[in-house]
């Protein structure tokens, strides 16, 4: 059995030290919570998709946009961030967004690099631009510093592998100390828990390089965190609706709106209708609107599509490189410089990346609480609350505050005695004790194969009841086999094995939800239901694991925005 360290206590345990987790920590501490613990799988200073920077913060700034929030709200809801999300939550977020921006500005994140509030990119020509252009290269260091100033306790290299629920309410968690090659369990008693593990990659075969599963647009170590909530009964939403990102081919990187250019076919014709020349304020929004564009043009034979920045001025290209640095894309910039790829002279092909759980996952209230009392969630792992930096900041802030208030009303309970905590300890220990067995990568790739074949993203690939039911059987078989066969050798591989188990739970949730959505919507193409049902347009489909092991799906009304 892996050694067990003495249990620690936390008024609020935050799982994941990304933007959502760090904002929750600061918010809770400012709300009077004196024992806030952040457990981060890697190191909070450089973990997650915001590790080296970001550059677009969705927000409404009255002095910039004018007194009417509604046009900005409309653009937000039509954007990649807001599409398919809960209007009531999104409206509350947008009203609060400038306050968050000002906080970051005050703490030292460079929110107005030109000295002014400026919104650029991810925008339709002539419409309000809802994304503040900022320099996020120092954001993680700044937020960690602010949290530490307030006395927040950090446990880096401590992935959480299981949550504990007692008498219906969250009670704590089990982490693993992987700071040394020999792992040790770290049980935690917690009055409240906030999940902020980021989006989920590595569920589908990696589109640019199928043999390299860590070549992903966002952080590939964000993988399966929704599964932690799933196993204690938290309901999930939007799991069945595929989200795909796009970017350069074959080095997967986000930041397509930072390129100042036009998507063009080989003959120079623009791919989309939005611009025929480079535009520093709007960019080319085509791939935001036409999600599968790069795959579609290849399938039709009219592609490939290239990002052409050659008509941009030297000043604009200098700005683009600066913005890429602020977004954390120094590796892309350095690679291009070394390879002699100059945006002024070369057009880079773009492609569609694989489906990810980005803004797919936990169903939360407008204050960030899940269906499990005392369990909150923030950031890209939330299914109904939008995604991206600004939403992570908002839900972290709101959830941290609400959790702090709840923590004051509850006491500690022996989470380490929960049967599922003990069972997870035994399971993970068996992986380390096994003399021979399967590598975690085998299990991860097996899952990717199944998900890619039986629950693919449209528009050309389809789902159906037969395909999805078969996929569900296969994922469950795989999980059973993995539990019997996985072998690990050290802390690192134990962490990966635990991630793969989380990923399998995410796969099960996705397949079950996709079965229940008996219509075609977005990239969820049901061959057996080839239409979009208007009656389902104002409802969310949730999926959850009941205490008896049964997976259930339910429809609930979407909460509409209450405009002032």
């Amino acid at each position: 059995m892996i050694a067990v360290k003495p249990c620690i206590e936390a008024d609020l345990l935050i799982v994941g030290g990304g933007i959502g987790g760090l904002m929750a920590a600061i918010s809770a501490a400012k709300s009077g919570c004196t024992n806030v613990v952040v457990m981060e799988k890697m190191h909070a200073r450089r973990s997650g998709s915001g590790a080296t920077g970001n550059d677009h913060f969705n927000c409404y700034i009255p002095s910039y946009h004018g007194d009417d929030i509604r046009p900005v709200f409309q653009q937000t809801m039509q954007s990649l961030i807001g599409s398919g999300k809960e209007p009531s939550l999104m409206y509350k977020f947008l009203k609060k967004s400038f306050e968050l921006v000002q906080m970051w500005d005050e703490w030292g994140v460079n929110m107005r690099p030109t000295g002014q509030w400026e919104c650029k990119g991810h925008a339709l020509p002539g419409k309000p631009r809802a994304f503040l252009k900022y320099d996020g290269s120092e954001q993680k260091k700044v937020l960690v510093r602010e949290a530490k100033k307030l006395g927040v306790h950090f446990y880096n290299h401590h992935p959480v592998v299981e949550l504990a629920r007692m008498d219906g309410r969250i009670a704590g968690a089990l982490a693993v100390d992987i700071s040394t090659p020999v792992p040790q369990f770290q049980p935690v008693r917690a009055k409240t828990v906030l999940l902020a593990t980021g989006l989920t990659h590595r569920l589908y075969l990696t589109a640019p390089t199928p043999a390299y599963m860590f070549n992903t647009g966002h952080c590939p170590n964000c993988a399966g965190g929704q599964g932690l909530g799933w196993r204690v009964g938290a309901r999930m939403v939007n799991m069945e609706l595929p989200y795909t990102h796009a970017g350069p081919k074959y080095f997967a990187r986000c930041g397509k709106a930072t390129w100042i250019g036009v998507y063009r076919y080989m003959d120079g014709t623009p791919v989309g209708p939005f611009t025929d020349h480079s535009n520093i304020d709007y960019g080319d929004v085509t791939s935001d609107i036409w999600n599968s564009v790069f795959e579609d043009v290849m399938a039709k034979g009219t592609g490939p599509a290239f990002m052409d920045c050659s008509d941009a001025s030297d000043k604009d290209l200098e700005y683009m490189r600066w913005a890429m640095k602020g977004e954390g894309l120094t590796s892309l910039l350095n690679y291009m410089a070394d390879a002699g790829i100059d945006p002024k002279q070369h057009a880079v092909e773009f492609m569609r990346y694989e489906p990810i759980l980005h803004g797919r996952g936990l169903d939360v209230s407008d204050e960030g609480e899940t269906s499990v009392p005392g369990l909150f969630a923030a950031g890209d792992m939330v299914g109904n609350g939008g995604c991206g930096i600004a939403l992570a900041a908002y839900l972290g802030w709101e959830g941290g505050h609400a959790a702090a208030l709840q923590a004051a009303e509850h006491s500690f309970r022996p989470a380490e005695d929960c049967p599922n905590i003990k069972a997870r300890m035994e399971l993970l220990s068996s992986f380390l004790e096994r003399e021979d067995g399967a590598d975690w990568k085998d299990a991860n790739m097996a899952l990717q194969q199944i998900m890619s074949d039986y629950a693919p993203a449209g528009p050309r690939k389809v789902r159906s009841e037969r395909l999805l039911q078969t996929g569900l059987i296969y994922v469950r078989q795989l999980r059973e086999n993995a539990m019997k066969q996985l072998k690990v050798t050290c802390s690192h591989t134990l962490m990966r094995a635990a991630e793969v188990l989380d990923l399998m739970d995410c796969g099960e949730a996705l397949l079950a939800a996709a079965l229940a959505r008996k219509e075609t919507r977005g990239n969820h193409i049901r061959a057996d239901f080839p239409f979009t049902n208007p009656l389902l347009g104002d409802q969310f489909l949730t999926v959850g694991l009941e205490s008896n092991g049964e997976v259930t799906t339910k429809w609930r009304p979407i909460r509409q925005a209450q405009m002032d």
Partner: protein
Amino acid sequence: MPPVIDHEKCIGCGTCADICNSDIFVFDRKVDKTPVVKFPEECWHCESCVLDCPSGAITLRLPLSYSLMHIDASLLHSSQTPCSASSKEARS
């Protein structure tokens, strides 16, 4: 593959191993003077290690399969396509 450590420049502080976004380094101070890239295929190529290395000892090398596909932009603004160019060359 991924981070390449210049062992002459490395001062053995272990920052890269501590902050790595993907936990790909191992640094056993009892055995090694500098960190070892033990899980190179799990690198995200985020460059955190390059950015935080106090002695500038780390560079990043992308796998060939990650190469950016690109063409000369002038081809998009002329009647000549790469195919027609190559076929003309073949005829000449």
